[in-house]
């Protein structure tokens, strides 16, 4: 190996690895990034079953039903239109999760059109609004964001 060559080979190897990382990142991001949906968007163009997404909107008043096991809840999430998505969640509800409050549900669509949430982000403290609910544009969303919802980390 000539004097100049080793450095060149090192640079090329490093560049290849970094470019490889970039390509892998781009490819995986396309498949694994978690898209945010409003209820009307989910109704119009549902994501494929099992794909991890986020659903954000308002918990429809009167729709929260707790199942007999005491830990599974079903409720409807509405947005700016009449479309409502049924959501099912097993777990400890965020402290200020109530009817009429804003919520962001992480999870995926199940086979029967029910959104299976693995995590709920709801009001958590007074100063934060989940990014997804910012600037939704309608009065309802603004109201929702202003006085009810706030996100956890993530």
């Amino acid at each position, binding site marked *: 190996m000539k004097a100049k060559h080793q450095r060149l080979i090192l640079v090329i190897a490093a560049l290849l690895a970094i470019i490889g990382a970039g390509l892998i990142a781009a490819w995986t991001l396309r498949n694994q990034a978690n898209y945010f949906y409003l209820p009307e968007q989910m109704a119009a163009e549902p994501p494929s079953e099992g794909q*991890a997404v986020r659903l954000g909107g308002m918990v429809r008043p009167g729709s929260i039903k707790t199942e007999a*096991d005491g830990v599974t809840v079903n409720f409807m999430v509405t947005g700016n239109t009449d479309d409502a998505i049924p959501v099912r969640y097993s777990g*400890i509800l965020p402290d200020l999760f109530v009817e009429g409050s804003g919520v962001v549900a992480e999870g995926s669509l199940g086979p029967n059109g029910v959104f299976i949430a693995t995590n709920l982000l709801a009001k958590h403290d007074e100063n934060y609004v989940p990014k997804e609910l910012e600037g939704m544009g309608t009065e309802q969303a603004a109201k929702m964001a202003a006085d009810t919802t706030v996100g956890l980390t993530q």
Partner: protein
Amino acid sequence: MIAEIGLAALWLAAALALLQMVSGGFALKATETGAINPLAIYARPAAVVQAFLAVLAFILLLWAFAITDLSIKLVADNSHSMKPMIYKLTGTWGNHPGSMLLWVGVLALSGGLLAGFEKRLPEKTMGATLAVQGFVALGFYAFLLLSSNPFERLPVPPLEGVGLNPLLQDIGLAIHPPTLYAGYVGLSVAFSLAMGALLTNQVNPAFARVMRPWVLGAWVLLTFGITAGSYWAYYELGWGGWWFWDPVENASLMPWLAATALVHSVAVLAARDALRTWTIMLGVLAFSMSMLGTFLVRSGVLTSVHAFAVDPARGAFILGLLGLYIGGAFTIFALRAGAVSEGKRFSVSSREGALVFNNVMLSAILAIVLLGTLYPLVTEVFDVRVSVGPPYFNPASAIFAIPMFLVMAVGPLLRWKEDKPARLQFEVSLIAAVLISALALASVMGDIPFLPLLGLGLAAALAVAAVLPLRGRKLTRVPTATWGMVLAHFGVAVSLFGMACEGAFTQERLAAVAPGGTEQVGDFAVTLQSVSPVAGPNWTAIEARIAVSRNGGEPVILSPQARNFWSPAQATSESALMTRWDGQLYAVIGNQAEDGRWQIRVWWKPFVTFIWYGGLLIALGGVLAIAGRVRVDVKRRSAVRQGDARRADLEALDAAAPMPAE
């Protein structure tokens, strides 16, 4: 008066940073005689005095928080007279301007230490280093003084302060951010040194030996800070997870990845005079990542617990600084890198070769994390809202982490410069045997997901490989720094084992339980005995009494709480933990159902604590490495001194010796 003195100290410190920058810059311009420029002598004293002033400003703010001086806006906005003293103090850096003041305080302090004690480098290089350090500091002083003055007064002091985000009222906050900041700042010193060496063409082993303690120190602090932060998120957020790939967590992981690579490449430079340009590049990269971390956390660009600041002007300011520093650094690097002559060469199968491979793998992981962290910010500009989580980060980083771990097992066994793989037949087959049998054993034990399974196998192999470098050596004669390496590598194995076990064997039970009811999770019978209201200094809570008994043994009482703070109003879930040598039981309490049952959620996480024990071992390994290097250095200096003294004595004796009489 406190606020006014603090502010004056900050302005003076900023002026001194300017002096340090200009005076240090003159060091680059040699006089005609080749002696050091007379204008360059002010840089060192400026750095030392600046350190005193910046630390003084921080202490004054600390004092204002301690006595809850509500006429200072920052105190009124973030503190409360009823808060426990420890959280009054930690609240000093639990907000944006306060944490930035801590940042510059640590920055100035390390600049002062460098200027005051580092005498090994040529004056010219030192001048350039201090100039860069002054330039970095100046930007942050400007940021503090112009856009987030921590000492701003209120015309009318309120009667009571607003309080501190309850999630942050925790001992975790007391240690987590300051350690991370100190780590970031240590990297800035490494960066200044790298720039100084690059500008004065001094990229050589002597420079690497000066840079090494700073890099190691920063790396130890980052390791410790990340470990503490992970444990804090684990028990404080009540979700049972220990790493969420939250952008703020990534912001601390990225500088750590770059610093890990840098620690290894600077070692190669110091020992072998190879990887010169690469080390400088990593120095620039590590600092850029710590700047990016500061930007992500401080600018409010993320919605997250950590991003207290929601002020676009501030964000723009930090972004400007970020662009200036990173852009400037890479420009200087691009212009000067060609002038750095190539260091010593080595073959592919050598310790250097293994280190280079792992450096590249670490950089690739860094790229994965960086892209995943920035992607949501970029798409948001185009009005597409996404979030990126474990389904992306775990597999994408594993692609590079797995080969890295394999090479890491063998690398320390190789010789410098050139080695024959055949020499390591025994070691390699031992490591492979351990890897394969651990994989086989784990897959027999149950249906384990792919990544945790690989993690178990790699952890076992790495644990064995970590101690192999000690084989055949007299343990009492092994240098302290080598013990440091062994310990740190063993820590990686321990941590990996914890992560894999958590992923593979965690058991969870979520149920609504009436008082007196029992649920089973793993070997544990969990009985909800009672639920009662309790109150603390600034919160009220519902507290459950849960009796946990393992295989019918003596029950242990756990008391998870659902807390409501009133200033500011916020609810948090306080988990209760039962730690055993082989894992942790994690319990949280939820809401009460209409029929009077309470929701409880209990996890049994086997060996989860090993994640943080491993992190601590890694940090401890770094501490040993620093201690070993410093001891060798002190020994060498005193040996040189003694040798000089003896030579002087001998000369004196010779001179005084009477001429023998004829």
